[in-house]
């Protein structure tokens, strides 16, 4: 019983691993700060760094010097909201991806796999196409929350339907869940296709923009509604890290460890659906973030969700900001769809790490 006799010194580096993870989190915070500053400082309009810093000082309430009003306007009304939007969207997508992968014990699981994205897309398309007609009163009342709430509701409803289909005897089979997800994906795809057909020209354009993925819709109201919707998942999911760790052992095993599996699974699904829905609604469909970010962190520091979830939030935000920085500066004065860039940046990096990992760790 006396545990002091255990040969801890032989495993000194095991204890270090935890410290290393903490250190990595600090490094990621620093990375986010640097990338955010770059994102605010760099853009098609050439603004001297001094003006950028003075403007930011002014925002922080510090004594700021004279700044050209146009420069200040670009920073405050274009770059700052866009930077915050990018951080939130990236963090939300990455955390949702990590949570889903833990929930389904599949490192390749993705919100799109179980119908969250498809359901969210269907609901958002419904709002865009039908928003002017039957739903007008509802969408007007909700304002800038209409699209994200619809996407969240759509993702949630489809996920719950998939869930119900896959549950029997109060237990959930992952295989059935994934198969049901495929079926729901197909149904939602068909629904979206039907609405696309009904859409008029103007709506079709909105849909096209939306399906390409972009942060160019970054306004302060958009940032505000996104922050409100993204706060619960970003705060709550990291608190469920131990539950997700236990779920990796298997549902029954997690139950044996005292986790109320049947109650926690829907909560995790709902939080992830909220994050994905909010992100999708404000920036369209941006792929790869939810898949690549948790993967990279797992390769570097292992699959422990206590590190993985906050790490994903930070790295996801930084990665998306970096991608957006490239998206809006590579082809100025035009702009690239950010989804293409996340795939271009994330894909090869991910593959290279995967190959290296297979060679060394296996």
């Amino acid at each position: 019983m006396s545990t002091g006799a255990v040969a801890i010194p032989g495993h000194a580096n095991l204890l270090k691993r935890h410290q290393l993870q903490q250190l990595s989190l600090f490094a990621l915070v620093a990375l986010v700060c640097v990338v955010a500053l770059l994102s605010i400082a760099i853009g098609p309009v050439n603004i001297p760094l001094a003006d950028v810093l003075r403007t930011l000082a002014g925002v922080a309430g510090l004594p700021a010097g004279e700044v050209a009003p146009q420069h200040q306007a670009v920073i405050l009304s274009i770059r700052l909201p866009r930077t915050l939007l990018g951080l939130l969207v990236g963090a939300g997508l990455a955390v949702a991806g990590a949570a889903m992968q833990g929930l389904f014990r599949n490192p390749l699981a993705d919100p799109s796999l179980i119908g969250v994205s498809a359901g969210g897309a269907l609901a958002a398309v419904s709002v865009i196409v039908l928003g002017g007609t039957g739903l007008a009163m509802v969408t007007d009342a909700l304002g800038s929350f209409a699209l994200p709430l619809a996407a969240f509701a759509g993702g949630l409803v489809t996920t719950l339907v998939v869930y119900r289909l896959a549950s029997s005897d109060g237990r959930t089979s992952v295989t059935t869940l994934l198969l049901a997800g495929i079926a729901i994906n197909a149904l939602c795809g068909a629904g979206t296709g039907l609405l696309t057909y009904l859409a008029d020209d103007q709506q079709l354009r909105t849909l096209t923009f939306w399906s390409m993925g972009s942060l160019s819709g970054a306004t302060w109201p958009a940032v505000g509604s996104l922050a409100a919707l993204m706060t619960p998942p970003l705060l709550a999911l990291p608190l469920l890290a131990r539950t997700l760790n236990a779920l990796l052992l298997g549902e029954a095993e997690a139950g044996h460890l005292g986790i109320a599996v049947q109650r926690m699974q829907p909560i995790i699904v709902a939080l992830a659906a909220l994050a994905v829905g909010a992100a999708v609604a404000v920036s369209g469909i941006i792929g790869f973030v939810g898949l690549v970010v948790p993967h990279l962190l797992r390769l570097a520091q292992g699959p422990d969700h206590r590190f993985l979830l906050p790490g994903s939030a930070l790295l996801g935000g930084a990665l998306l900001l970096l991608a957006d920085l490239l998206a809006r500066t590579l082809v100025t004065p035009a702009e690239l769809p950010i989804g293409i860039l996340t795939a271009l940046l994330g894909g090869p990096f991910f593959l290279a790490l995967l190959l290296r990992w297979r060679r060394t760790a296996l």
Partner: protein
Amino acid sequence: MSLSPAALGAALLALVAVAGAEGLVANPPQRIISVDGALTEIVYALDAADRLVGVDTTSLYPPAAEELPKVGYKRALSAEGLLSLSPDVLLATDDAGPPEVLKQIVLAGVPVPMIPDQPTVAGLHEKIAAVADVLDRAGAAVELSAAVDAALGEARAATANASRKPRVLFLLHVGSGNDLAAGRDTAADTLIRLAGGENVLHDAFQSYKPLSAEAALAAAPEVILVTERNLKGLGGEDALLARPDLAATPAGQARRLVSMDGPLLLAFGPRLGEAVATLARHLGTIQGGAPRASEQASTEERRDAAARDAGRTGSPPANAVTTD
């Protein structure tokens, strides 16, 4: 944290916007960005091209426009990208976007007169007048509108003698899936009518919709109209006419395929008269060429024939026309 910069930004932008608006009244804008092919053409036609500092990717004519900085596709604009060109005004049709970006441009003090984009002759005159208003070129606009009317009048007079209206199907190839076909309220629809033809899908639907193989057969077009670039994408003339949905139509049987320069066909700009005349020549409504025997049959009979011949690909001598 997020509220104070928002408020500060809004206040600042309001100030800048007021300043910008006052500037516009005083003197005509010297730095113009146009994000629509037709508007760009109008700016050139009004002899104000020297003031253009940027155009979108749909601005393909005149060739000189392609030399200007490209601000991207008209529906996926970048606020800061546009601002980096320091424009005095952004010329845009009402389908430009995304809306948030246009809002930011306006807030940054750059006026964005939204010009309605109607594919009608009246709509074209409205566009010319609106652009001229921004450029302070009212005189040139009157001349341009008159020239457009003159060209259209000429074309109308020439097609007036045509014995009958050829039934035309306009196809737009957009990547995978069924091709889109033009219904009513489209540039193609108006152009076909002005050129003395009849859009087979005018009564079927509005705007562009995917067309199934059987619907194409049932529409029984006598002429297939495509853009030159699309024709390449669809695999060329022979491949297109051999498609099962088109081969059995009267157009497929008679190998009547017209391909036209895309910007001329679809831009609906000041070259409308030229576009109508070109299409009319291809449709045979101007020269009044001798109608073929089969074209004298009634529509119903032709449809029956098309249905009987469905799946068979006997093709009479080539009669397809293309422009270069």
